[in-house]
């Protein structure tokens, strides 16, 4: 059965698809997506998105049989758990590991195994489902990274193509254009360098990359899901969790990173966005696409300060990733799918009994006052950052506007005693806001100054500079 794709095009209004924060609700979005085996995402029901990876082993010709056994086992466990818990619908994400993109046929073979098992689940148990496939962005294997040509780029395109042919329903990627500058700027807490990476370099690569991905999606009639700022904002979140960076930097980076992720939608992606894209709510507010989010359910992949609030506006609820190892009950993917399924029963009960507003308020209030990264993730902050982005033009200015709006939101919360920050965090907030305010209005002069500081790290032609 060919995957049917009924697509409502993203609202083309200049403003926001959702301008009232009370409408930014889990399970509902202006532009629901139908894909895979008759799964309708964002149309009144929150579904689990189960994500899994290999245990401690290498991926080589000699271990490939063992690798495919793991994915067959996981496919079986997912469908039987869905049957046991009467899960109505599910997105299964297969995040390729590097060798599976370097050998496109390997990634395609696993895609086929999972897609066929879901087809059988649909035909035998009536399980609605869709398979999201996320090839690896291997272009930064060479430094400075060669993003628009070369062996890696070619392998990546073939990986997208062969996975699409092998039965993927949704394509996504955690792209790394601009990361070579962002990593450096992040370590020095240099907001100008961060803006150069997120507002100048990344959008240019995203446009090049996602035009290609859309071509593949149209060719095979499958959905272009979206990108994730994992290499940017999640790195910042991890550094903050290791107390290597102030949390305000991670919060500002999160808001600013929405602009580069938005480019995927501008190129034709229709969601669901990637689970580790915590900037998802901002994309949903601007374009109305359904989004996948992760929080406490992803404690198996990394810890986070936004365990509950991250779910306040989700259309899919994910566990980010967990190895196929045995716990006392069964495999870890089975255990985390049970967790996701019960969380989703609460979302859907709230939606079906008019309690959605109350439940969303509980999810937000439980985290928002405890952590600055949770503050910028609240529905209210989300709409304000989204509004700042659409109220200016050009990815550079939009990125600066988003970052500044984050600073304003944080300052207001501090004044209203709704948030507390340490002395050093306050110092970094002030220093960062001042740097942002002193950035040039004109993009070209900004690029010139950044090239002197960071130019040695990039290959300009990879960004069309």
């Amino acid at each position: 059965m060919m995957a049917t794709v009924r697509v409502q095009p993203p609202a083309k209004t200049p403003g926001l698809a959702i301008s009232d924060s009370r409408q930014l609700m889990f399970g509902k979005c202006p532009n629901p997506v139908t894909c895979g085996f008759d799964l309708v995402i964002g149309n009144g029901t929150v579904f689990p998105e189960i994500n899994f990876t290999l245990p401690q082993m290498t991926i080589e010709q000699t271990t490939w049989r063992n690798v495919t056994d793991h994915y067959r086992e996981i496919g079986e466990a997912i469908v039987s758990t869905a049957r046991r818990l009467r899960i109505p619908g599910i997105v299964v994400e297969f995040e390729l590991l590097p060798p599976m993109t370097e050998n496109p046929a390997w990634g395609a073979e696993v895609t086929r195994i999972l897609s066929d098992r879901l087809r059988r689940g649909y035909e035998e148990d009536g399980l609605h489902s869709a398979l999201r496939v996320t090839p690896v962005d291997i272009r930064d294997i060479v430094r400075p990274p060669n993003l628009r040509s070369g062996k890696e780029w070619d392998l990546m395109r073939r990986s997208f193509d062969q996975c699409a042919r092998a039965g993927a329903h949704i394509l996504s990627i955690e792209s790394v254009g601009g990361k070579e500058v962002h990593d450096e700027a992040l370590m020095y807490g240099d907001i100008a360098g961060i803006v150069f990476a997120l507002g100048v370099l990344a959008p240019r690569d995203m446009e090049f990359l996602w035009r290609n991905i859309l071509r593949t999606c149209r060719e095979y009639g499958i959905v272009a899901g979206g990108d994730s700022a994992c290499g940017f904002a999640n790195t910042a979140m991890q550094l903050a969790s290791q107390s290597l960076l102030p949390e305000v930097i991670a919060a500002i980076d999160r808001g600013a990173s929405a602009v580069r992720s938005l480019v995927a939608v501008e190129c034709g992606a229709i969601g669901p966005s990637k689970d580790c894209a915590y900037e998802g709510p901002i994309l949903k507010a601007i374009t109305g696409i359904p989004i996948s989010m992760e929080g406490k359910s992803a404690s198996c992949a990394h810890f986070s300060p936004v365990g509950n609030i991250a779910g306040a506006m989700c259309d899919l609820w994910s566990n980010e990733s967990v190895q196929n190892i045995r716990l006392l009950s069964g495999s870890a993917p089975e255990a985390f799918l049970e967790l996701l399924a019960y969380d989703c029963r609460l979302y859907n009960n709230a939606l079906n009994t008019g309690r959605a507003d109350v439940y969303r308020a509980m999810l937000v209030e439980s985290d928002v006052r405890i952590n600055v990264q949770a503050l910028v993730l609240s529905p209210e902050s989300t709409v304000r950052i989204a509004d700042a982005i659409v109220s200016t033009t050009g990815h550079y200015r939009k990125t600066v506007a988003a970052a500044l709006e984050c600073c304003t939101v944080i300052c207001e919360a501090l004044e209203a005693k709704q948030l507390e920050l340490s002395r050093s965090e306050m110092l970094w907030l002030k220093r960062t806001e001042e740097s942002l305010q002193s950035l040039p209005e004109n993009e070209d002069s900004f690029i010139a100054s950044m090239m002197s500081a960071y130019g040695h790290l990039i290959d300009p032609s990879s960004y069309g500079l």
Partner: protein
Amino acid sequence: MADLQELSDALCSGYVDRVKHITKELLENGTPSGTILKEGFIAGMDIVGARMSKHEMYLPDVLQSARAMKGAMEILQPYLKESGVKATGTVVLGTVKGDMHDIGKTIVGIMLQGAGMEVIDLGVNVPPEAFIEAIRKHSPQLVGFSALLTTTMLWMKKTIDAITTAELRDKVKIMIGGAPTSQRFADEIGADGYAHDAGGAVITARELIAGLKGTEVSSHIPKVAK
């Protein structure tokens, strides 16, 4: 006349020019370059490392201090060479084959430099042969592996085996790190040390290098409960 204490304080505050100025002054007054390195630079960076481990100092401030030290080292280097003072140790560092996660490894490299070690960073996706070549070329006391994927961790084991086959194993100490690794994993694959974060990496690196040279470890960084 500024003394070693002021040098170390200036270093902690990351004042690049002031650190260069004091270094020149101390050299002019005949303070031995080795003393300036040990009781000025390394002592200062040890305080920075301790503050970082107690979460009292963020990475940008730490890197600012590292930048200040790097700047002044350019002044001190010729004097050190002249008086035969070698770097406390040479470290070859890299993210193993198939893995491109690098920021964690990069931070560890910077902190080791701050502890007065010479760091050769081989980058990402580093195959065993490249590590072996670097060992032969730089004859480091220490080799550091980083990995963040469960499917690349075992390349740490393969690289150790390759180093053993190349009869270089007893020439170097091997230290590992990265989110999916642990002390238990280090023991399993026959590595000499593991550290959970950059602060721990400096402590472990010092112990391993000292162990190799049989000298006592002198460092001001309190042992952080792993």
